[in-house]
């Protein structure tokens, strides 16, 4: 009798499942169809980019004035692996700037509160972290780390019409104002960074250059690889070897480096991930030692250019080329620049002088976010979720720690990335500083 009852419930459950399956009217169109149904962007009469709130889950909340306190959320890997080591100081930099903004009343009449969630760099945990923060009253997100995590919450935040600004990923996926108007990127797009390296290579090797490509086998690595293949001919680059590494791989990439050395590539463009960066650098040094006469110029993604990572690599990182739109905070010669001095003094007063180089990324992210909030507060509509995303898409801001000439600019759907100017720099392992190679490259600004 019992087993018969169980079978009956099983049939009922299976039936319910089937019903849900058949009732699912998903058109399967993926992101394109989905998002265009969710929200639509419109051009305001004046020509400025404006967001539509009519399809928001709660349209009134999207345009409701925010006064007194603005709760800002972010999700950063703070535990669970090596990513935590790299990003914990970034979170501290964000906290520091929020305190700085409040103390200096940068958004008149509004106090900022920063709430931080931890997703361990695991996209399955990002939705829960974001939901927890939304439950806690967060009104805008900034600086969520990682491509997958941002993708996992992008639909929800766009449906809820909660700004997801300054996404810490250079993936082209986040430049999609048409389908995801509430999401804007912060990092220099990976395609722009690759073009900057290609341009620099063309200047270093005017007669043409053979390049070995080494990248992690993820969307992140492929963004660089695809761009390099696209622009190679334009810059006289011949890709003679391509080697990949899986993101979970921790062993030194000896075989890959042997293949690159065997190709005789005059330069390498390398896109390892996180803790793979120092391992790669050390293996390059080993390969050079084992292959007399092979001394390629190595350009490495600027996501590896953290002093923490370079410190682990030690001398093996010497002479690497990378890029940045921020000043080299670790360079004592730059410490007297007024804005950098303000930053260094503030962090020192907080007892965080030891993390100033790595925390600078968090400080800058939050600084740009606060500039957006201030612009939104000063707008005709006042501070609302809608005015925040509109400000994020019409930004013109000179960052405190930016190199001379760097302006964070966006313009509606035509220019969505803030940082698109980069300077190529070369690392000096002995001095632990970067030397500029040429001037700021702004050729790829949208």
């Amino acid at each position: 009798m019992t087993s018969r009852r169980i079978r009956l419930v099983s049939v009922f459950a299976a039936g319910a499942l089937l019903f849900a399956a058949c009732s699912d009217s998903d058109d399967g169109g993926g992101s394109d169809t989905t998002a265009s149904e969710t929200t639509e962007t419109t051009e305001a009469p004046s020509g400025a980019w404006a967001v539509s709130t009519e399809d928001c889950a709660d349209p009134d909340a999207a345009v409701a004035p925010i006064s007194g306190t603005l709760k800002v959320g972010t999700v950063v890997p703070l535990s669970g692996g090596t990513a935590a080591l790299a990003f914990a100081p970034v979170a501290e930099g964000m906290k520091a700037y929020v305190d700085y903004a409040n103390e200096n009343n940068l958004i008149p009449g509004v106090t900022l509160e920063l709430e931080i969630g931890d997703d361990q760099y695991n996209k399955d945990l990002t939705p829960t972290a974001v939901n927890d923060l939304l439950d806690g009253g967060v009104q805008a997100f900034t600086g969520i780390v990682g491509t997958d995590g941002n993708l996992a919450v992008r639909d929800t935040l766009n449906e809820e019409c909660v700004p997801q600004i300054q996404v810490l990923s250079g993936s082209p996926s986040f430049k999609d104002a048409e389908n995801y108007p509430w999401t804007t990127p912060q990092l220099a797009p990976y395609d722009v960074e690759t073009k900057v390296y290609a341009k620099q290579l063309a200047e270093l090797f005017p007669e043409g250059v053979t390049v070995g490509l080494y990248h992690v086998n993820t969307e992140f690595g492929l963004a660089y690889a695809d761009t390099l293949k696209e622009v190679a001919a334009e810059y006289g680059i011949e890709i003679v070897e391509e080697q990949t590494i899986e993101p979970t791989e921790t062993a030194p990439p000896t075989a890959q480096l042997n293949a690159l050395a065997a190709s005789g590539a005059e330069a390498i463009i390398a896109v390892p991930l996180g803790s793979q960066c120092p391992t790669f650098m050390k293996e390059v040094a080993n390969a050079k030692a084992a292959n007399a006469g092979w001394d390629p110029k190595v350009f490495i993604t600027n996501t590896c250019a953290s002093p923490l990572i370079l410190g682990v690599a030690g001398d093996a990182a010497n002479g690497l080329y990378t890029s940045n739109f921020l000043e080299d905070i670790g360079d004592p010669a730059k410490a007297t620049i007024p804005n950098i001095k303000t930053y260094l003094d503030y962090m020192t007063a907080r007892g965080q002088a030891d993390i100033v180089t790595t925390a600078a990324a968090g400080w800058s992210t939050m600084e740009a976010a606060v500039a957006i909030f201030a612009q939104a507060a000063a707008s005709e509509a006042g501070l609302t979720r809608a005015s925040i995303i509109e400000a994020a898409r019409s930004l013109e801001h000179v960052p405190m720690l930016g190199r001379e000439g760097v302006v964070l600019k966006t313009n509606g759907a035509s220019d969505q990335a803030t940082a698109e100017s980069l300077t190529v720099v070369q690392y000096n392992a002995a001095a632990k500083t970067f030397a500029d190679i040429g001037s700021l490259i702004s050729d790829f600004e949208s």
Partner: protein
Amino acid sequence: MALVTIKRNSPQHIAIRVLGVLLVAIAVLWVPTKMTTGNIDSMTNALALVIAASALNLVIGYTGLISIGHSAFFGIGSYATGVLVSKYGWGHGWSMIFGALLAFIFGFIVALPALRIKGIYLALVTLAVAVLFPTMMKWPKLEWLTNGARGISGIRYEELPSLPFLGELKGRDDRTVFFYWYAIMLVIITVLVCRGIVKSRMGRALIAIRDNEIGAEVMGVNLATTKTLVFGVSAALTSLAGSLSVARTGVVTADGANLTLIGSIVFLVVMVVGGAATITGPIIGALVYVWVDNYTRTASASGDGLIGWLFDWSAVSPASIILSVALIVLMFVAPDGVFGLVRRLARRVAVIK
């Protein structure tokens, strides 16, 4: 010596069982009605682990076949949903059913080596499956289907089913509650399938294989059929968790934690923490694991409370350390899992004969 002895199927025994069912029903209803959206979402995540760990329990707990390749079956469900929804316009439900069928076949094939080898050698074979799966999904020749290393995004359950008793579902609150019920339904199916197998002749065959394989064969158990079938069913159930995960996040990449070896280890931890070779164990294990993990991460991130005070010296979040220590302590205190511990304590109060 227990304080009370209760006769099986006596009115008292039935009353205890009814009370148990009522308490579970109240807990299931309490979650979506009283909890915050974040906690409901977290519970849905735990339910996905319940499904995967229960499925693994069939293979390891009841049959004694060591598998650390179940992340691949999770991945089959994830990719079946991702590919069929994004490229072929299927509904999530149908794609989940297809994924389960595919995983069943795949699980059946993976079990073939189990007919010849066992123990650590079988573990190595399943390890190879776990390692191979993400690489296969990124294989350039399969890129037309899987989108390679880029993965597939924008595939969440876009239009939620409009069921008469649920009304129009819109926004994250409704969506989260929908997925909670969706997960509960899959958990019910999983538990019923597992219970059905365990209580049946096949279940007795599984336990016989685990306890004495030669003896089981002598007694007439068809080892080949039993092992391959249970592996297939376990794989199919695990794929349901994968499909659920994709429907919830809308993203599938070959490097997603649950699709890699890490996923297999988490399923194993959940099963052991709850109590292997029990139906209730993986349920309790998943709830305990997710609660401890969430609590330590949230408390560590905020820096408040006892954790904040104790670990003020640490530059990084102590969440992983606390979780690891908690699991080690738990294994000392409750070597049979949390359910085993509860059962042991309960037996001091009452035994059912």
